[in-house]
């Protein structure tokens, strides 16, 4: 023991010059790395904050311009929202379509994910994967024409139902995928235990499975609401009358229709339309943590 200590001290006392120099460069490299990292993160923060500045300032500016600038504070701009005939109805439409799709997606995905998680079918995972890929392609744009045509033939053009069904169909594969992951993570002994006590499949689903995977259901619901809330293409294609269009479409028409854009209206509406998804995101990440589920780990 004492021998070892003496030896250690001897080493510290007589550090060879080369090693000292290397330690110095190591320290320099470390400092450079820390500075580089800080600079990079500052640049990233700036890049991502820059476009958002306008959204933070313009709604409260008495004379909003396109440039983001320190506002001459007012809340009068929000009054313009009430004057526009379409703004409030479009928010109502967004709520209707988002809620409808979320309910449909959560219920159907939960049922399907439960069954798929508990029943062994060969090729099940491959099938889910294909559906997932298909959904990320088809709901984008590739099926624009047939979906328009399908909605026309089913008399779903210019109806909320058409938008809800189309969006739900596209969201379902991913929802099933994510929920199945939650289900796979719950021990089958919960359900078997309930079965031995005589619970029916629906009782098991309602008493045991749904409460246990509630975080998953909440995640899916919020994700579905956020997707539908922000979706533009499907309602843009399927809806004709502005009275039925959701906020996303109305907002687009506000800044593309002729004449000089009403910046007070656009800025306040943008802010108002963004708030729900931001609040929901904060809610979910606070309550359940924003984790990655499904597919990703494979």
């Amino acid at each position, binding site marked *: 023991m004492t021998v070892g200590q003496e030896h250690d001290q001897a080493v510290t006392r007589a550090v060879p010059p080369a090693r000292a120099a290397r330690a110095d460069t190591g320290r320099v490299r470390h400092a450079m790395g820390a500075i580089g990292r800080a600079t990079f993160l500052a640049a990233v923060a700036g890049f991502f904050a820059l476009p958002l500045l306008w959204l933070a300032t313009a709604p409260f500016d008495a004379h909003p311009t396109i440039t983001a600038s320190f506002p001459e504070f007012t809340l009068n701009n929000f009054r313009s929202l009430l004057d526009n005939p379409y703004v409030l109805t479009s928010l109502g439409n967004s709520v209707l379509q988002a809620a409808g799709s979320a309910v449909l997606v959560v219920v159907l995905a939960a049922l399907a994910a439960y069954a798929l998680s508990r029943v062994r079918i060969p090729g099940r995972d491959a099938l889910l994967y294909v559906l997932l890929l298909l959904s990320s392609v088809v709901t984008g744009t590739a099926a624009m024409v047939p979906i328009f045509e399908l909605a026309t033939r089913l008399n779903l053009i210019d109806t909320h139902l058409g938008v809800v069904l189309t969006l739900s169909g596209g969201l379902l594969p991913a929802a099933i995928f994510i929920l199945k992951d939650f289900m796979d993570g719950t021990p089958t*002994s919960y359900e*078997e*235990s*309930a*079965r031995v*006590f*005589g619970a029916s499949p629906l009782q098991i689903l309602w*008493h045991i499975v749904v*409460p246990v995977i*509630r975080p998953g259901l909440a995640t899916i619901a919020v994700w579905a609401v956020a997707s539908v809330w922000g979706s533009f293409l499907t309602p843009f294609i399927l809806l004709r009358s502005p009275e039925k269009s959701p906020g996303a479409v109305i907002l687009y028409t506000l800044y593309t229709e002729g004449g000089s854009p009403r910046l007070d209206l656009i800025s306040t509406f943008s802010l108002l339309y963004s708030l729900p998804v931001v609040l929901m995101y904060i809610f979910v990440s606070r309550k359940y943590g924003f984790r990655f589920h499904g597919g990703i780990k494979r």
Partner: protein
Amino acid sequence: MISLHGLTKEFPGGVKAVDALDLEIADGEFFALLGPSGCGKTTLLRTIAGLETPTSGRITIGNNDVTGLPPGRRDVAMVFQDYALFPHMDVTANIAYPLRIKKVPRAEREAKAAQTASRLSLSELLARRPGQLSGGQQQRVALARAIACHPTVFLFDEPLSNLDARMRLEARTFLKRLQRELAVTTVFVTHDQSEALAMADRIAVMSAGRIMQVGTPSEVFQRPSSTFVASFIGSTPMNLLPGVVKDGTLRVAGAVLPLPEGVAGGEEVVYGLRPEYMDLSVTAREDAFAGHVSVVENLGTSFLVTLEVTCDSGEHLVQAVVPEDAEPAPGGAAWAVPRHPRALVYRDGELVTP
């Protein structure tokens, strides 16, 4: 009474987890299904519960043929290895769950849950969630939930395996006392032979979907019916040494032993003797295994001594258990002297000693 007749469970792919099995378990009996992992014991338990459907054969509980009944209508309660307590329900709700399924009014089932909980010293914990309980407490909640619905049969899947070593001993005693008090027919699965020996009234030792031996713990321990059971039962493995009958004596690993009953001349047999029935001598004897002490293991109140025995038939390891003040020094010569009345002889893996 539980009776199994020709019970077979074959999984897709042709694996027979349970293979044409017959078994009778008496009323009020505490019965262990013991075997190494993959021997089909858990599948058998789940088949009795109704969680698996048998490929063929019949199961009766009491006078009812339950083979085709769903689990909920067999009047059994099962405690799972991970206890399967519902994480979103508190202890009361967990214990009362079977009664909720039976549509017992809320007030009544909560009273019943509280009563069962107090019997298992859980009264302080009624409002807690499973996540806030220790392993031992979780196990008792699971037991309480099984007791609360007054089944005719309890099924326990590895009831002690999720507890740490010290808790396991306590829980063993507790479980045995509880079963005695309730006097409900209980079948439990374990891979730990000491658990089976300690708790069960009778044990079925299983291997590859078949029952190798059924008997009381003493029977199974003292007269294993096959070399498989012999090597599986006992904290220290039984000495199993090849022997041959010659000139009216049994020659085993250099030792010349008196001929046991049931064997004839010229036969090749396996000689079995537990290390506990082997004495150690420091002087040479002909009816003993002569060798060198290679390892001495401290078992607390005794020592397990391993001898390296070299003879015509090759090198063998012979083990003996000696009292705590009689341990030999490693490396020295020693003779392991068998106690003849305890010796067992196996031919083709089967017991021939009458």
